[in-house]
């Protein structure tokens, strides 16, 4: 089992790791010949986060070899990964590489960062060893991307800094285990509602963009059995509703805030799916898909 690569876009990788460390402590890092995938599963089974990074977007000289079809599955502590990647965020950083190794009987992802010291311009080398656990293929066999029906509403989320500020206030109002209701339609309207014991609040955004479902390449959905006609006849003004745990929604918004472009899918009374495009161009090279099931009303 071998993995070795130099990192050409460490800030993108660091951004993804930072966003994922908001969601959970531990993620499953899947490495193969074509892409890198990090999966974070919530303990309560209410949400899953799938992050997808194409190799060219981040790595150079990517070398991987393993007995099971050049696929390596690792369990990685996300905050440690993020922290170590941040070491490269100095102006004098020159190059970085990562490899799978074993030190003191613990498998580690060893990150080597070369920087230049500002005073003497001499190289200084920082090595960060992240402890990992190697997972057998059968351990991760059950991990499959959730399949969602074709969403009734697809909407680009409003300005994320504003959304985050409002969300934080909502979360404080409804308290722990509170619920937040999201409603959206294809007329560019998104509503966020909180209905707690003592308070009832509602925010509404208008004039949002409604991208066509499947406009971006990597979005996947399950075509319903119903005919296209039914979908097409659906009134644009009909709202689809999802109910999510307030803390979960706060996490979703925090992850969204790290991205360049965010599309939310509202599958009526079923699920919320958020596509976060991390790359500078908002392209498909690095994405985070956040799946949240809708709570019963």
């Amino acid at each position, binding site marked *: 089992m071998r993995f070795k690569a130099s990192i050409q876009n460490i800030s993108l990788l660091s951004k993804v790791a930072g966003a994922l460390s908001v969601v959970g402590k*531990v993620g499953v890092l899947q490495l193969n010949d074509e892409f890198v995938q990090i999966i974070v599963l919530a303990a309560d089974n209410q949400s899953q986060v799938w992050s997808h990074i194409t190799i060219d977007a981040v790595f150079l000289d990517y070398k991987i070899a393993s007995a099971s079809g050049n696929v390596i599955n690792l*369990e*990685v*502590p996300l905050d*440690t990964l993020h*922290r*170590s990647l941040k*070491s490269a965020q*100095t102006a004098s950083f020159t190059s970085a590489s990562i490899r799978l190794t074993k*030190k003191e009987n*613990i498998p*580690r992802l060893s990150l080597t960062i070369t920087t230049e*010291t500002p*005073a*003497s311009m*001499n*190289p*200084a*080398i*920082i*090595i*960060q*060893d*992240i*402890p*990992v*656990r190697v997972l057998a293929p059968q351990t991760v066999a059950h991990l499959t991307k959730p399949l969602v029906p074709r969403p009734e509403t697809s909407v680009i989320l409003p300005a994320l800094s504003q959304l985050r500020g409002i969300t934080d206030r909502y979360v404080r109002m409804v308290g722990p285990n509170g619920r937040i209701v999201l409603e959206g339609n294809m007329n560019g309207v998104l509503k966020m509602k909180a209905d707690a014991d003592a308070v009832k609040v509602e925010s509404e955004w208008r004039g949002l963009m409604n991208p066509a479902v499947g406009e971006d390449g990597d979005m996947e959905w399950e075509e319903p059995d119903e005919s296209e006609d039914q979908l097409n006849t659906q009134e644009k003004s009909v709202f689809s509703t999802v109910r999510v745990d307030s803390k979960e929604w706060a996490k979703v918004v925090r992850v969204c805030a790290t991205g360049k472009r965010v599309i939310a899918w509202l599958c009526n009374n079923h699920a919320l799916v958020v596509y976060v495009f991390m790359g500078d161009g908002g392209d498909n090279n690095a994405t985070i898909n956040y799946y949240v099931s809708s709570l019963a009303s």
Partner: protein
Amino acid sequence: MATLNITLNPVAVDRLYEALNCLAKFGDYVTLEAKRNKLNLRTLNQTHSAHILICLAGDTFCDAYNFVPDPNKLLSSLSFGNNGSQSSSARPAEEGAFTCQMNVRALLPVFRGRYVPEAVNKERDDTLVQGIEKCEISLHEKSDKVQCRLVVKLFCRHGVMKTFRLQYEEADIISASFRREWAINRWTIRAGELKKWMEHFGPKTEHLQISHQERTVNLTSYTEKIIDGAQILKTPLQTSVELDLIEFNEFQVASETQIAVTVKDFKSIVTHAGTFGQIQIQAAYGEAGQPMQMTYDQSGMFCEFTLMTRKRGAAGPAGAGKAEPVAKILAHRNAPSAPGSVGTRTRETSAVPIKTQPGSAGPASRKSSVTPGPSVSSMPPPPSVPPTASRAMEKLASVSREMPPPPSRITPRVGSTSMASNSMSRDSPSISGRQPSSLSFGLRGSLPPRPSQSLFLMDDDEDDLFGPTPGGAEDPIERLLDDDDDEDVLGWDASLGLDHTSSAEMQEKSVHKESAAPVKKGQEDREEESGSFVDATQRKNVVKGLFD
């Protein structure tokens, strides 16, 4: 009664805050030791593996500094110093230094964020709106032991004055024992640089190993916790930074020398040093298992950190690099076999009749007050103050008329107990293989002599801590700490008022004592000086009476 008056400018207040903040990362208590030309702040961490001494120079750090020792203590300690064989090593006591201990967390808010322009720590000070113009610290010590307080007055803008009356406890001075002659390895680096490199280290790793090859220096963090399969992901991030030797201004370390210290301690030191502008951190150490000393200074603040080092992989009690002596001292100090010596320090035993009248507390009575404990040979130094004493110090923002006596403070004879126990450990026959003049605790006899050099000792020769540095004879540290040279020069404001009668009385007293126990010439001078100082003290008390 000792008199202490300090005036600080806002920059110095901020510096003092940063220093206290650093001390708070090591221990809960800070020991204040006022001497003629400087104020020492010390902290010993809980495991006794780190000792911090921050020295504020009276002339350069403070706008004004005036300390007058307690004349009674001065006199008695003088004669005491003469009746033993260790007159040379009991110097600080001779000078009648005032010592006390305070909860550092209670001190922090007093000095926090009082200064806005040219803030030391920009991130923190951006949100500040209040500023001060001047800070005055004075000691209000009274013979009736009811109203002993350290008073901090902050003169703020717009004529607002804030007064903090802080309780303090009696304290023993503990110094780190650091043998410069063993510290053959030394390096110097810019604090800002080192701080930047240390930022790469995660918060959870335990130890930092410092090693070097031909051209490079390696800082590597590691943990010695045994981690089983399930916890493998909780293994701390292991970081290694490899620097070219050229980053160091000086690097003279014997080849193959590898030492390890606690990452957290090292980071705390470097972070504090980084708050100064461009200063150099100096490190000096011997082999692993011997203490390491890190020092730096700027604008009259001298910081000295003594850390126990260890050898990587040398875990377990048998490990040569384990900081074993430190642990033993701790165990011994907490041993319940020392009620006698506790007697003078805790409230419960305060009923024990102890002569505390000024002047009457001669060396003989002092000794007797401690001897009820176990046999002298096995007497440990007084144990550290029980944790309940942490509530002993409160901050009183307003001037209150009725102030309860400080709970833990019984007598202003600060330092006397330490002196007594000092003398005992020195006289102790249980010290095997050590000279009586050894500066170590009595219990040190049970420890392997070298290389497990013990880290701590009662303060009786701490001025050697700052011994000759490579900087040369003109080193400001040396100049500051060389009390013998400086004490005649030390200025105090004679205009505070000279009560000639009292002065004469005091001098008579001194002469009387002198005749009982002849002293050296230099000490005579000191006594004369102290005679005049007493006037100032008394005068101060009168002033304070008006204020109350």
